[in-house]
């Protein structure tokens, strides 16, 4: 089972983690991999923490992974990477968006948001930091932040040769495809 690769994507409801996972899974299936993707939604659309897991290889059984199993953690929000870091293999890597979203408890002052989340990550694991919101905004639409992060993931997992144009076309409305092709490329370049 060692050939199965495990990817964990996390973020906050509304950031587009599920769409990014869908694009990723689509490209992997087209490339001939067996793929399983698991997501938890429902209450998470009310601003809660969101996590999806994508597994691919020749034969994938479980749709979910446990502790210390992910080859890579891609976090759309700085603190969420710390929340799910336990899922990462000891020698795995982290791609993290330099983007902080307060929570209901930090907004009201009940808890402190850990402002040093990224510094903490860098001490614990091989960490690639990018400002996906800024990159996406410069490209013309901040909402393509999720595809910028997907691009970074693609680069770090060595999946550049997959048919991303087709996957983007299959997963989004035609008017957004061109922008997101650029977003994907920008994400790749950001962690090159």
């Amino acid at each position, binding site marked *: 089972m060692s050939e199965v690769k495990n990817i964990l994507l996390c973020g906050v409801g509304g950031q587009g983690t599920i769409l990014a996972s869908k694009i990723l899974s689509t490209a992997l299936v087209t490339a001939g991999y067996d793929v399983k993707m698991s997501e938890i939604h429902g209450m998470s659309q009310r601003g809660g923490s969101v996590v999806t897991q994508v597994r691919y290889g020749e034969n994938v059984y479980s749709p979910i992974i446990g502790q210390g199993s992910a080859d890579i953690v891609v976090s759309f929000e700085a603190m969420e990477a710390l929340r799910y870091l336990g899922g990462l*293999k000891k020698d795995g890597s982290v791609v993290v968006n330099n983007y902080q979203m307060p929570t209901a408890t930090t907004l009201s002052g009940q808890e402190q948001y850990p402002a040093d989340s990224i510094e903490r990550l860098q001490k614990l694991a091989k960490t690639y930091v990018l400002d996906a919101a800024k990159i996406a905004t410069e490209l013309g639409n901040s909402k393509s932040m999720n595809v910028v992060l997907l691009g970074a993931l693609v680069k770090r997992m060595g999946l550049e040769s997959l048919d991303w144009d087709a996957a983007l076309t299959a997963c989004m409305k035609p008017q957004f495809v061109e922008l997101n092709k650029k977003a994907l490329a920008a994400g790749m370049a950001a962690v090159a």
Partner: protein
Amino acid sequence: MKCLMTGNEAIARGAWEAGVHYASAYPGTPSTEILENVAEYKEIYSEWAPNEKVALESAIGAAFAGGRAIASMKHVGLNVAADPLFTSAYTGVNGGLMVISADDPGLHSSQDEQDNRYYARAAKIGVLEPSDSQEAKDFVKVALELSEQFDMPILMRLTTRVCHSKSVVELGEGRTEVPIVPYTKKDKFNPVPAISKQLHTKVEQNLKKLEEYANTTPLNAITWGSKKVGIVSAGAAYQYAREVYGDNASYLKLGLTFPLPMEKIREFAAQVEQLIVVEELEPIMETEIRAAGIACIGKDKIPNEGELNPDILRKALLGDVHESIEYDASVVANRPPVLCAGCPHRGFFHELQKLKNVVTVSDIGCYGLAPKDIAICMGGGFSVAHGAQKVFNMEGSGKRCVGIMGDSTFFHSGMTSMLEAVYNRSNVLLVVLDNRITGMTGHQQNPGSGFTLSEDLSNITNKHIKTINPLKLDEVKEALAWGMGFDEPAVLITRWPCVLKKLSQADRDEFGNYKAVNMVNPDKCIGCKACVRTGCPALEYHADTKKVTIDRNQCVGCDVCAQVCPKNAISREVK
């Protein structure tokens, strides 16, 4: 053609391929997307029912009339639908009938993690349990055929991981049109006691026949690996077991899990050194296997609480733990789901919380995210409040109950709950938070769509009924005082659309283009945090500047924060 699908999408595709005529459901996570996807296939007549009991009853009617029918619901929904379920097991069917129960081990979005495989045993009907999306699709056809062959409804038991995980599905070639079976009047459709006695005998016989089938069907198949360990499993748990043991075990993978294929299990057990039953939640298969005199390992090692995963099995059965990075996770702040910025419930709850000596009895929906004292089940908000009020009145503490539910919940099972309070006269305040849609599950219409509750209710309830705008805090405050002023039940309706709702023309006519954005004037803000205490996620208090700011991307200008600000520091501008 190969396609990546969730289990729920695959069920819908399977229903289409299997020639299903009629589908009904009430939304509930993790089952909701089944009917949403069925609705995409125009050959299937599909509809949202007011609740799960009604959905199943309608599907029973469709099956009696000779169509292939399905009813889908979340696990607690089957509690609501249990009455028709049990009797339909006696009557049997004409066209095939499949009942889908989407269980939620791990309570991702539920109030309990009941194991609905018990229901099939109590009702005496067959159970299918797919372990991935391919099986989810394929098993729909099997379920309907078994239903017709063995003359019983079939329970399709899903779990969150099967419903919401995507895996590769080889699609069937297309839809097979199945002719509607002509209806003829039959005694079995009219189960009065004398007939039901005979039907019970038939139920036992059919179950026996289904067990014989279970022993021979390829739905229950053995994959040989090492014979040191033999694993009996089904559903998502099978995938976890396979993940952990790989070729180091043999597997008896069950698709038809009730009645259990005991002969096949016995043969399998005889060929392996050690038998392990891997099942999520309750030791149901294990208990029956042990009762048949077959030794096995099960819940003595594997937990019966929460969702399983490969880690839990690896640790429980092999004592192995994957190494992971050790770090201080306590610095990570909680991120609980909250009412959206602009949620119409916020204004109501803000004023309600100020009342003293009040017990808030709510139930299941987005409004459950707001502060409450008691919640039991869908539609329970009013009746639980009524019962509690009767006893508080005996006790003499002066406590007052406020019962709360949303519009969809009201139509689901809150109407009878309201009638209880009105008929049996208790001094409760009953509040329907009418946000014009079923919010929590992602915006399904309900019987209130297009209607005005106050006009409909004034005839059947009582004279004390009032409709208000929940975003106007003065109006809410005044209405609460009004509602608490009676010695008999009063009904308050808050009417404002869910902030995420795509407004219909009727909504636009009624509510107008209300969206705007609010701003804080930093010169006036004194950092008192009164606005932050409304719980709006668009507001942020900055400890360094001791000021609040508003996130323009989230704010819709509901104006609740502006109304609570003591310094008039918050103002609106048109977006």
